[in-house]
């Protein structure tokens, strides 16, 4: 599951502005499976699992511990009903990179969602992978989602 080249080639760009920061975010969403009953009725899917990968340049040195604590504090301050389920705890990526993970859940008007936030720092780039699933299936799907996150790797340099 990689980002289609078409998207990468057409990365949007704006006229340069001094001091502006740029961050990239890619979203991977599981397909919507519409269930069709024998009667011909269809049932819409519940919340679709997804993984969002965000990357940004660090403007000042930051440790993983500080970064995940900032993430946690920001979420506690901005998300009502948020509950930390687990972590922060060490996380190992398939490519050998080290990260920290944090499991949370929070209510939304349609369902309670659960997320795993995994942070890693490569040189001066902070990567945050957020896997989101319906909380009711979190226990069953957590490992599946972590497997996806674990497979994160940096794109090889062109040429």
């Amino acid at each position, binding site marked *: 599951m990689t980002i289609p080249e078409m998207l990468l080639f057409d990365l949007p760009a704006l006229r340069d502005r001094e001091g502006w920061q740029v961050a990239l975010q890619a979203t991977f969403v599981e397909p919507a499976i519409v269930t069709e009953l024998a009667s011909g*009725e269809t049932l819409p899917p*519940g919340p679709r699992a997804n993984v969002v990968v965000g990357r940004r340049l660090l403007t000042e040195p930051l440790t993983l511990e500080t970064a995940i604590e900032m993430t946690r504090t920001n979420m506690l*301050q901005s998300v009502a*009903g948020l509950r930390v*389920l687990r972590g922060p705890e060490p996380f190992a990526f398939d490519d050998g990179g080290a990260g920290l993970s944090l499991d949370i859940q929070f*209510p939304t008007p349609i369902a309670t969602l659960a997320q795993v936030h995994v942070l890693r720092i490569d040189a001066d780039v902070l990567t945050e992978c957020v896997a989101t699933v319906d909380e009711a299936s979190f226990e069953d799907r957590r490992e599946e989602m972590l497997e996806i996150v674990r497979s994160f790797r940096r794109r090889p340099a062109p040429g």
Partner: protein
Amino acid sequence: MIRTVQRLLAPLRTAPPEPAWQTLSALAAERDAVRAVSAFIASSGESMPPRVLSPARSDGLSGARTLEMIAAQAAFGAGDRRGCLAHLARVLRSLKRESAALEDAGRDLEALAHLRLLRAETMAMLARCAAEWEIPPGSIDRSLRDAARLAEEAVQAAPHEAYVHLMRAMTAIALGDADGAAARLRALADAPWLNEGWRESVRSVVRYAEGPAARVRQGSPLRALAAIADPAWLDRHGDALPEMAAELALRLGRPVPPALEVRIVLEIGGADEKRIEAAANALIGTGTDGAGSPSIIGLRAALRQRFGVILPGISLRAAALGEGAAVIRAPEQPPLSVPAEIPAGDLDWWEAHAAAPAALRALAQVALRGLDRMPLDSTLSHWPAALARLRLAERMEAPAADVQPVPEAFSDAMTALTIERLTPREPPPWGLEPDRSLRWLPRDDEAALAAGVDGPAIATEPARLRRIVAALSPDGDGLWPALVVRDARLRPLIRALLRIDRPDVPVVARAECGGRPVAPLDPPPEPVQRGDPPAWRRGVALPAAGSAEAPWISADWSLTLTAGPALHAELAAARNAVVERAIEQAARALGVGLPPLRLVAEEPLTPRRWRLACGTEVLAEAEAPPAGALVVLDSPERVRALVADTERLVPISDPRHPATPATLVEGVAEAALVAGDFPSVFSPAAWVARALAALGPAIAVRCLDDAAVLARLATIPAREATALLRLGLAPLGRLLRALIAEGVSLDALDRVALPLAEPARRVRWLAREGLVAAALPGHLALPHPGTAAPDPERLAIARAVLVPATLAAVHGAGRIGLWLVEEAALADAPGAGAADEAAWNDAFARRLDGCARAGGVVLAPASRRAEIRRRIAARHPMLQVIAAHELPRGLAAWVRGRIGPGTVRGAPS
């Protein structure tokens, strides 16, 4: 209540008896002196000046004066101020004229002395009228000055006239000097010259002066009631005081005081009762005190102004304490001795605190600690009221009115407050004042408490709590501590745990502290060995036979709950209806009637064991948790504080985790206290009740015998009942039991009657394909194995009607979350009776835990529906397993989970 108040009021009604004023007034108006005097003597006889009533000098002049005096008395009793004063003025003028005439005529000394007595009596009455009605006597006669002096002059002029003494006393009472009046009359009651009739009258007025009714006239009924000579009186009358004060005030035409419940007791020490009472009076203050007055009334005004709460009633009592000492007792707080050590700055919000005596400062501190228990000064709806209680627990002001609009994003008040507190503001919240010493809650303690959040409750051992509390003392600079926790969401919970032992210690979250340094708690509490709470079986083992195939008891299905001695005592408590309520609710949900529950104590059972039997069959047997098994809840006060501080214990009572064991409280009474608002707070008895509710289908299956079926039929229209009866009672009973066993409600039984009774016309049974084609709207084909269950076509038809009705009743306008079980998920399922079947079934059912937590419904292939239901019934007895055609039309549904092929975790390989 009214009768009680009246009975309590009876001893207060010791005022002199009142004559029939209207009769007297009429007789006086008719100038019929003889009958008027007779009537007056008959009805009163002791309040009237004897000289006036004396017939010895019944010449025309004195006869007219007698009538005037009677008319004045009648007018006084009837509240006719103008008439009363006019009569008295005429009497005074008459006496003045006669005295002048006598002096001109040659000084008849005896007659003049008599006139002086008459004048003294008239002046005494005038003084009383003036005091009662707050008018200057000089408005009647310029020679007369204030009422008190006038009454005094009357006594000086006629020192041996009991009447003028009584009038002086009533004048003093009306002027607010009930103590002085009582003291003087007590001396008079022993006077040797007083005849017995007057002596009794004097004693009567003494009782009146000492009673609260007289003290009401001192300006504040509450003050009067609190400051009576015998403080034990308050003990005797307890909570009825506010009503009594209100009634007294009404009788006296005063404004009705607020109905304050007496919740705080202030015990005052002193050398004798007089000094204690004087101290009490000084503390109470006057009715005109404002927030700036160092008095209880001033404190009440200040609390209302600053925090928006009403200080409850305070009972002032004498106690065997030293001079100046006092003890304050308030609910859910440790007693506070005076003088109390109060953290610097705690009382800065009250401008009068510096001038307040030590007892009052301590009372203010007690008030601060109980802010969230006080009645709010404003009327708030549920959400703002919950927020107000949380804010008050943090010594923040309650909102004066509903917050509109309520932020929808805040699912609960605690979250709202947590977020609000994370925003820096001025002045800083309680605990973050500059002169606080911030101390970390040791990391291992916080971790231990946080771990409890995911368990049955936020729980800690009392020893751990004691160590934390012991370490919370002012630092070397005398700065009072505030405890800092890392997790903002834990903050209110930890504050709730601490507030019983250390209500003076605020708890703040790290995120609220900004960059302020935080010191370790010194000495740090030693780590505590974490262990499991006292062992008890969690959950209830459902009988394996939870289906229609289970043996059915038709002979005697009365329900019997047998309990060990300790649990029996709790279940049998008069206030505990929780078990019966649970059974009733289960019956209502299933649409059937259930028999009453018999409660039996049985010694051989261990103290907390219980057993439910239907007839002779035991349906379930389990151990109720010991009271206080979750050791943090070691006192009802702590439970109340915990519940009140957090309103709903988010991690504990998460509605998405209904199966999570909830907070246990110490006893039945405490559960009853909080159960209404906090349904997840359980007593051990409520724990049993919940277990019984889960047994609802199993109970109902066994209780639905022929008689119960007939009773149920009697509740539906005759046409439908007759149609159902045509099926035969026994087959009908089997069908209904099969439905109930799977949690299908019979509430809409009447709707299924006609399709069931006439399947041939409405339903086409396709035996070869194993299908039923029904003419039910929206459902064309009902696949069904049609082999094992009795009356398969009728069961299919009944489910097609009743399952949608059940789901619609449960989910209402909400959206049904479906967990789709694919047929492939059962590919490796062992057959019925296989050795590994139970283990496989349990592991399979665990995959539906999320569905059960979320209140979802399992959607199964129609041909495997019954099988799937059977496989998960032990773990999820209440989970509905339906086929697609049983989905209610018109209700929104979506697929939230899929159970596909794959290794079932925990299943044997």
